[in-house]
Every structure is written in C-alpha cells, then in structure tokens.
C-alpha cells in the first residue's frame, strides 16, 4: 500500500509543516513515510506545494509526487492560479478549505471524493491566529483524516499538542474540522486530458525584462491599501517608497492591484495618512 498526498498552499500557511506532521504521524504508527517540499524559493503568499508518502513497505521513490491519491488545498485562492487536479486519478480524494460545498467542484476526472470544510472559519472561531492570520494547516489535517489515509486522530493530536505553543487550540480545531467536514463522491466531466508543455529554446542563459515574473502577485495580499484621494496631496512619497513599483503615476497616484503585495509600507510613509488598509477579500472558488 502506498498513499501519496499533495498539499497546496500559499507561503506562510504551513503546507510544508502539515506535510511533515502527517509523515511523522504515520511514522509513529509504524508506517514508512516521506515528506518533501517542492524545491524552490518560498515567499509569504506565493503558491507552494509539499508532498507526503505513506507506505507499509520501505519507500524507494525519491521523485516528487505526480499522481497523488489525496490533494489538500489550504487556500481556495490557490485554485485560481494552480491546477490542483493535475495528475489526479479517478477515485482520488480532494480536501479543500472553502465555504463552498463538494457539489460546487468541477473537474475533468470521471469521479472524485471531495471533502470541504471551512478551515479558515474554524481557525478564527477558535482564536487560532498567528500574526493576525488564521492557522489553517492543522484543521485541514483533521479534515484529511476523513480520507483513507491510515493516520488516527489521536496520533495527530499527540504530535500537534507537543509541537505548537497553542497546542490545545490546534487540537480543538482539528476535532472540529474532522466533525464538520462534508464528504461526497462527486462526478466530473469525464474528459480526457492531454497536457502539452511549451518548450522554450535555450541557447544562452539570457532572459528578457518583463512584469510579473512571479505572476500576478496580488495573490500574496492579505491586506489591501486604499488611497483616499480627498486627503492625498500628490507628494509622491508612496510612489517613491513602494517596494513593488506597484504605484503608478497616472493623473494621480494609483495602486496597481494586480501586483500590490499588501506590504502596507505606503500606509506608513504617507505624510497625510491618506492611505488606509483592510483585510483583502478575494472571491473564492
């Protein structure tokens, strides 16, 4: 038996940690396990992946997971930029942090087992926050246990309680997510998928300048700055200090919301206090 799990998240949400905790839990129960991050530089808010393998025999695969049995999506925003269904076979499990229902999921596979839970809501309700942001990886691990993954709630809670300062809150969130998760077999479109890769010719290691080398980095925003033009006096301090070059000089200063990462440096440098900030709310799946 070999189960492979792929975690999708945004940098800082603990996808890698979740992958490790799962591997550790499986290890405690006597399974062979592996946890690997997708190798690449991680930045807060940027899409990241991590993989876990669990087997009752020694695991010899050292490559990344391309055909997961379980896909865990820590942030609904991820589905807008990453194809979380890639490589997933019929009958596999999708565990998603969302306020939507399993029936709302559309995919090419013939059928998948879909689990949905509002892990963000559970985290906020249990005051499970770090630096003001909800901790979703632990409740999602709770929801993950509703799949055929051979890890028990007790083992998971044992590890989490020992690992984190707010151990109790985490354990509570895990239980709640486990209980509240909705599980359903969903039928998909039954389409064949033929992935094609664009090959770029490489003669020299030379690149051309372009915006958005990391994609539309608006995805990285947790907070959104807004300029109050009634107070703004066009001093251009926000433009000068923006680390992202995301403030444009049009007729007036304008924030480019495609790229603004929500660092809020502009809020602090504006001498007129004309920039305010609030929680970014993206429309999720």
């Amino acid at each position, binding site marked *: 038996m070999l189960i492979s799990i792929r975690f999708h998240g945004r940098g800082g949400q603990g996808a890698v940690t979740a992958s490790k905790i799962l591997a550790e839990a499986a290890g405690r129960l006597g399974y062979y396990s592996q946890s690997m991050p997708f190798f690449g530089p991680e930045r807060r808010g940027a899409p990241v992946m991590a993989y876990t393998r669990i087997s009752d025999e020694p695991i010899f695969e050292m490559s990344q997971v391309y055909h997961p049995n379980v896909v865990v999506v820590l942030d609904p925003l991820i589905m807008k930029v990453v194809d979380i269904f890639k490589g997933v076979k019929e009958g596999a499990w999708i565990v998603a942090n969302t306020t939507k229902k399993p029936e709302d999921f559309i995919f090419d596979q013939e059928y998948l087992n879909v689990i949905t839970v509002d892990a963000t809501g559970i985290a906020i309700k249990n005051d499970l926050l770090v630096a003001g942001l909800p901790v979703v990886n632990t409740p999602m691990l709770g929801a993950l246990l509703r799949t055929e993954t051979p890890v028990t709630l007790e083992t998971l809670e044992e590890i989490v309680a020992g690992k984190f300062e707010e151990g109790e809150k985490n354990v509570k969130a895990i239980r709640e997510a486990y209980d509240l998760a909705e599980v359903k077999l969903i039928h998909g479109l039954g389409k064949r998928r033929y992935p094609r890769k664009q090959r770029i010719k*490489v003669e020299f290691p*030379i690149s051309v300048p372009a915006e958005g080398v990391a994609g539309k980095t608006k995805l990285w925003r947790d907070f959104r700055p807004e300029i109050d033009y009634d107070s703004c006096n066009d001093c251009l301090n926000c433009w000068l200090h923006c680390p992202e070059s995301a403030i444009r000089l049009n007729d007036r200063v304008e924030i480019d919301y495609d790229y603004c990462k929500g660092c809020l440096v502009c809020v602090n440098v504006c001498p007129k206090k004309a920039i305010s900030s609030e929680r970014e709310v993206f429309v999720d799946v």
Partner: protein
Amino acid sequence: MYDVKYEVRILTGNETAAYAAMNSEVRVVAAYPITPATPVVETISRLVEDGKMRAKFIMVESEHSAMAACIGASAAGSRTFTATSSHGLAYMHEMLHWAANARTPIVMAVANRAIGPGWNIWADLGDSLSQRDTGWMQLYCSHNQEIYDTIAMAYRLAENKRILLPAMVCYDGFTLSHTSMPVELTEFVDFLPDYEPVWMLDTEKPFTHGNILPPEEFAELRHNIQKSHDRALRLMEKIEEEFYEIYRRRTPLILEEYKVEDAEKVIVTMGAIGSEAKVAADSLREKKVKVGVVRLKSFRPFPEKHVKKLLEDKKVFVFDRAISPGSGGQLYQELKAALSSTPVKRLSPRVVGIGGIDVTKRTFEKALFERKIWVKEVVS
C-alpha cells in the same frame, strides 16, 4: 633551414603565448602571476605599456578574479585572454564552469604544473586535466610554434557562432614555457577576423544574463554545450586546412600521427613528451622495433572517431603525465572508453613525468619493455 619570410624570433613558450595574444588582436587581458606562467603576464605588461599591444590589462588580485574579469570583458564584447597554471587554475575552477555555461569565447594559456602540497613548480598535466569537466575545449601543444598558431586557431574555434565556448591552450611548464625556440610571428589578419559577438551587454537591448534557469531548460543548455563540442571536432578539420592554405604550416588541432601506419606498438600521449616520443620512435625503429606515436592535441572535445581509426589492431601504450587517484591516468581512462568496441592487440597504461620528472627517449624505451606502469625516475 627556416624560410625567413616573416619575423622569426627566439622565444620561450611563455613569450610566444604573449605574442600570440597580441597578434590575435586581444583587447582585454586580466591575469595574475604564478610560476611558471608569470612571464606571459610580464611580457603582455611590457607590450601594452610600450604601446605595441592595443589592449587593456587588468592586474587583478587573484586568479578567480582574473577569470571573472575575463568573463565580464567578453560579455561586454571584447576578445579576451589570460594565462595561468596549477594552483591558479584550480582557484578559478568555479569561474571556468561559469565561462563555459555563459558561452564566453575566452582563450587561456595554461603552463601545466603540478598541484601541491609540497610545492612543486614543474611540469605535470594534472592541473588542466582536473578541469576537463568544465566545458572548456582543451588543446595540448608540444613546441613553441605550435603554441603560437594554436592560440589564434583557438579564437577561430571559440568565437564560431555555433560553438561559442572558451578554450585553454596548454603547454608543459618549464619544458616548453621556459625553453626558447625559433617562432615565426605570422600576422593573423588573413586568418582571424575581428571579434563579432553573438550576444553582448547593451543598454539599447537590455537583457539579464545568468538568472535562475529551471531544470528542463538547464538540461537543454548543457546539451547544447555537448553539441557544440561535437561540432568543434568537425570545425577543427576545416581550420587546420585553412591555416595550412594561408601559412603553409601544418599545425594540428585534433592530433598528430607519426609513423603509425606500419607501427606495431603505438605510443599515445599529449604535450611536450609527445615530441620526445617521436625521437624514441625513431630510435627504436633503428633497433628494428616498429613504433609509432599518436600525439593527441585536442583532449576536449575528445576525438573518439579519429583515435579508433588509427589504433585498430595496434599494441597501444598510453603515456599519461598526470594521475586521477582511484582510477588512473586520465588519458588512459578516456582512451580505454573510446576504444571499448575497437579491437586492439593491447592497451596498456603508463605514468611518467609526474611532478616534473624529465622524460627522455630512454624513458619511453624503458616503459615500453618493462611491465611497470609508473616510471618514477629520470632515465638518462
């Protein structure tokens, strides 16, 4: 007798390299002194200060910086040159990889010398052979005229639009670097055009060189470098011919064969001892032993097809002037691999001249008839 059509001077190998760089219209030199290559640096310094060589000479503070500066100058569009040896070559190892991957057609003179400790300043090919994986082309010379010609030919090779790889021109330390021989200082105007960079740093068309390259693209870049080496072998044949047409001088780029056709025993080797081997071959032929010599000029790219053709059905003795501990002489290893599907009557390794032990014709005679692999003394 010498046909004194062009200027002929009696020059050491090092001086020859400096004059070759001058007559190849090199524009930027960045170099650091190290025995036994130091005179190259000193000669170029004089030539530049006297106004004879139109180049900028950056007297860097280390060999690593020397190669870095060469890469920079080449990337900015100038024909670039440097010279080093032994520890200096090892110090710039990281940048050697950089120069090849960056596709900068730099030419470097290497006066082969052993790497310590203990300090050993004498001839040993281990320094350049240790760099055989860096992507550089490697050409081994056996006399000073050859050093002169090869440097110009190396620029033709390196700057070719379908090759664009750096090349090192190697010659035995002291044996060649400090020995004086007559060298005809031909001008290369008809043979070596001005450098026309395929790519260079330009504010009009800004690009970024060398940023992150993901796995699949990196693999393609590396594959292209291998393909360029393959193309280099074919180009070498053409350049040899062209050089002969213009200058009536046969300077090999791939290999030199001496009395191989009817030979029973063939000595395969590189560098100055390849010249000595020819004397040994003649001497042994007087004693009725039919010996021939294949002196490999190009070690990278390794001329597999050429050696297979020449060595079929021969008794082959490979003379290495270096050693890769744990495996053996590097030339022997690579030749063995190249000949793996070629029927030879015998393929035997020999290790001579390590750390500068002088190699005479008697060394060859002794090594051919004794069973030992290593010869660790001067046989006079």
